[in-house]
């Protein structure tokens, strides 16, 4: 049914969407390669490609702002993701497999938490964190990040666990496995793609946060990249820091792209295929 004509239209449509999505990325890359004097040259491409923005943030004057921030971001987001995925896997398994009172309540509550506007809790949180000494620490960001990543992880993992046929576990139990062995040897490997997907999404959520990052930190002790970008200054006070900001934006996008490329097969693979009749 796919005639040459419809194929062409698919290609045209696809290309349009790709252009639409990639244009801002291309623009930022182009900006990051422009010299400060070249920023308003009126054309999309830089008149001369220069790496000075990257030099500035990696080794130059902005590096003591950017590099600690990068380290903070990676560390805080990885910790938040790890905790969220482990906790969410246990919760989701219980929700998908067991019948207990308040199951709907747990799911509903986690949804409500994720709906809560961040901006409205950030001020009280700021005061509490200052009082109990969590202000400007990694833990002080990991905890609020969990409130964003946990609900989402619970929801996606519950959906994944529900997909795994229960018989698989029962078969394992009949074969002589304890509940824990059945979970570890059968359910966890089967849920692998689901866990990977969830981990990536959770990581992005934490990685992209700005409000908590700027409000709950004050120094490079804990300030993540999105917040640090706001503190960039130009080489002199008469220059816009646009180039440096763009370069930093490109660099923080790289881990995201790498992660997706690494796990893309895992995310797509339907590992449960062939488990049951087909």
């Amino acid at each position: 049914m796919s005639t040459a004509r419809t194929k062409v239209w698919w290609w045209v449509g696809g290309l349009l969407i790709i252009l639409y999505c990639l244009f801002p990325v291309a623009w930022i890359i182009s900006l990051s390669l422009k010299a400060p004097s070249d920023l308003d040259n009126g054309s999309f491409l830089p008149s001369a490609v220069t790496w000075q923005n990257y030099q500035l943030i990696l080794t130059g004057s902005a590096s003591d702002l950017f590099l600690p921030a990068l380290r903070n971001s990676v560390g805080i987001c990885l910790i938040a993701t790890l905790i969220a995925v482990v906790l969410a896997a246990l919760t989701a398994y219980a929700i998908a497999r067991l019948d207990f009172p308040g199951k709907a309540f747990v799911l509903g509550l986690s949804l409500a938490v994720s709906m809560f506007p961040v901006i409205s809790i950030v001020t009280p949180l700021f005061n509490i964190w200052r009082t109990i000494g969590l202000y400007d620490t990694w833990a002080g960001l990991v905890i609020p990040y969990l409130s964003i990543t946990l609900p989402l992880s619970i929801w996606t993992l519950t959906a994944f666990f529900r997909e795994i046929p229960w018989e698989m576990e029962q078969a394992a139990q009949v074969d002589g496995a304890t509940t824990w062995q059945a979970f570890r040897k059968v359910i966890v490997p089967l849920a692998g793609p689901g866990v990977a997907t969830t981990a990536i999404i959770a990581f992005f959520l934490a990685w992209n946060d700005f409000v908590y990052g700027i409000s709950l930190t004050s120094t490079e002790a804990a300030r993540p990249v999105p917040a640090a970008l706001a503190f960039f200054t130009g080489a002199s006070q008469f220059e816009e820091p646009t180039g440096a900001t763009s370069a930093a934006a490109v660099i923080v996008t790289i881990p995201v792209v790498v992660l997706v490329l690494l796990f893309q097969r895992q995310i797509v693979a339907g590992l449960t295929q062939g488990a049951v009749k087909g």
Partner: protein
Amino acid sequence: MAAITLSHVVKKYGDGYPAVNDVSLDIKDGEFVILVGPSGCGKSTLLRMVVGLEDISDGEIVIDGDVVNDKAPRDRKLAMVFQNYALYPHLTVYENIAFPLRLEKGRYSEDEIRTRVQKAADTLELNEHLERKPANLSGGQRQRVAMGRAIVRDARAFLFDEPLSNLDAKLRGQMRTEISRMQRRLGTTTIYVTHDQTEALTLGDRVAVLKKGVLQQAASPRALYEQPVNLFVAGFIGSPPMNFLPGQVEGDVLRMPLADVPLSEGLRRRIGDRKLVIVGLRPEHLEDADTLDEATAAKGVTFEADVDVVEWLGAELYAYIPFETREEVRGTLEELDRDLDGEGMRTQLVAALGAESHVRDGDVAELWFDPSRLMVFDPETGDNLTYDEEAARAADAESESERARALERAQRREARRAERSTPAA
């Protein structure tokens, strides 16, 4: 290997509905028992109670002398083949089969595991597939892997939950004989759940028929066919199913819609003072009168019937003859039809005639049957009034001794084979 005893087993769900109600069944060591019944009769639930995946509300299950009511599935040492196989998709065929062995930590060395898996794979002809993943196997191969996982360890019994229902008809026949051969050779106690009566009759040493959670009859296939205890069992066993006609007792004669039958002394005693009964006649007990010789024909009852539709199947020919049933038994028969997953279609008589019969659509055919083959049922309770307990017991005893002989033969054959292959190995 073990004997399994169910005594007064009950399964009640939250709403108090008993899915399994007071089932008692003695399964001898090495016996092949079938649980059969229409959908929703509780046969799978019962099996899952034996294996430990469902709690037992009341009663007791004893395996090899131990009460297992409160034991976890892993402590019951049973092997089960699931309806959808439940293979582990992330493991190769080899690892799937080795899975139960690896769980018993330290019991088997890597060499022992390899030998055992190899042996199971040889039995099931899975050798070329050991390194493949389940996703790349055909339905029949997956089925064999599931069986391999069951036979690889020394389970006390095998449990099968409708293992063939996902296969196509041809493969089903092959796997059926394969299961039968394997069970005879290993001599392991086996419980097999199915809704297919062909599987039930061909595989089972004993068949337990369930209806709405209640055990109707547990007997050898032949006893079930020849001496069903009630309407339900009579209607369930046999294909095409038994014909049920209303029969009115008038003096010495039993009047049925298509024919009148003289009542024998024995029959009259069993019917007692009932005026109306339900008469059961198996389609294969009807013959085309034209194909019989005089002497045989004289021994039975001949009647004329308008044949509505004829189905020719090569080996036999089914003739369908519509008839008007009586109001008084309509309710009972309709309920029976519902219990048997039927559609409540028109009342018709089915006759399985020889393929040489010349009866065609629209003919008036002369049909014959032997009145001693008739079964008579109480229209209220459905009990078989012609049930002969002695004959049923004799059929059971005969099939029991046949089973013992078959088991012995199979094991001798296995021993010979082992002898032959030892010097080579």
